[in-house]
Structure formats: structure tokens, C-alpha cells
């Protein structure tokens, strides 16, 4: 596709429910990033991949959060046993290699835990 695509755009989950958020990066982009953005705050880094390798997951807030990118393209962020504090917009970005540092972001998935 022309840009980074995220689905669903909106997700309402009951507390305790598991959710899976999908990211389709730009074709050929090596790096893929996940961020969590609370209302009025900047995006907080969660994790990133280079191809299928998860190089850094230091931003994942707890072991309820898990991300994968098994074939080096599509990525899924999974949140188990959701809690109200997980309510946020989850952003995905991808980036090509080389000296151009531009990352392309999707529109995000707004997760609301009730």
C-alpha cells in the first residue's frame, strides 16, 4: 500500500479481555516501531523490529504486552488482560534503511478499555 495501515482504527475492550492490533508497514521497510500515546502526551516508545528481529522491547509496560513480526512485514501488538490504564492510541511506524531518518506513521488504533 501507499502508507502504513493500522487496524482496527478503534477498539473497545472490556477489562480483562485480550486484544490484537495490526500494523501493515510500507512494503520493503526494514524497521518497524510501536508507540503508545496517551491523550495530550507525546508518543511513548514501546518496541521496535528490524525485519523479524525484535531489537528493543524496553518500552513495553508489562509482560501483558507482546509484539511480533514473524515474517518481517506485518506486525501485531497483543495486549493480554487489558486494564483501564491501557486506554490510549497505539501508533505504528516504519522506516527504510539508510541515512534518511524519516519514519512513516499510521493513523493509529484508539483502544478504550471499559
Amino acid at each position, binding site marked *: 500500500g501507499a502508507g502504513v495501515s493500522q487496524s482496527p482504527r478503534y477498539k473497545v475492550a472490556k477489562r480483562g479481555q485480550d486484544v490484537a492490533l495490526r500494523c501493515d508497514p510500507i512494503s520493503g521497510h526494514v524497521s518497524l516501531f510501536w508507540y503508545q500515546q496517551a491523550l495530550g502526551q*507525546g508518543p511513548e516508545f514501546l518496541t521496535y523490529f528490524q525485519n523479524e528481529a525484535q*531489537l*528493543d522491547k524496553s518500552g513495553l509496560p508489562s509482560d501483558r504486552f507482546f509484539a511480533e513480526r514473524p515474517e518481517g512485514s506485518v506486525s501485531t501488538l497483543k495486549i493480554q488482560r487489558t486494564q483501564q490504564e491501557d486506554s490510549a492510541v497505539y501508533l505504528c*511506524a516504519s522506516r527504510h534503511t539508510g541515512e534518511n*531518518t524519516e*519514519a*512513516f506513521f499510521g493513523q493509529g488504533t484508539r483502544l478504550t478499555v471499559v
Partner: protein
Amino acid sequence: LAKTTQPISMDSYEGQEVNITCSHNNIATNDYITWYQQFPSQGPRFIIQGYKTKVTNEVASLFIPADRKSSTLSLPRVSLSDTAVYYCLVVSYSSASKIIFGSGTRLSIRP
């Protein structure tokens, strides 16, 4: 990773030039300075990137002094549609490098 500091908010009027300054005292040799813009309900969008001196594109200019410890994003003749949050980032050109956002500058443009 170099930390950045920028004003929390700024106000200006349509037609004015707006300059947003960012400090990044611990910038490394391999780091680029990159600015993103974010509108409500959208993901951040790349505006401009530079290493040193001045860079200009169709949207903005980026001024970087010789010591690279700060940078200034310049938006010429702003309009209401430039109301957004602007983030200053320091990013390594290595593809194996995470991208970290700060709190950004909330720019409000008035008629």
C-alpha cells in the same frame, strides 16, 4: 540517546513567521535532527531533517549552528492549518536505532 528540550507551547498569528527552538546538548556525531508535526487523531508526520547548517524544503527551514547543540524550526507565513504539535527528535542514521519522542511544542495559530 540525546534528550531534547523544547517549549511546551507557543502562540502566533496567521501570516507570521514562527520559530521553534530545540536544545539537544548531548547530540552524537551520528545523529540527525528531525522534526515531526502531529494533528489531532493522526500519526506524526515528518517535516524536515538536517545534520548541520541550514536545510529548507517546501514546508519549513531548519537552522543548525556549528556546535549542533540546538536547532530552530522555522515556519514561514503560518496559517490556521499549521496549528499542531511539533516534535524535535535526535535520530541516529543507523536503521538499527529507535526513535524517541519528547513532549513536543503545541503551536496555536490565531486569525
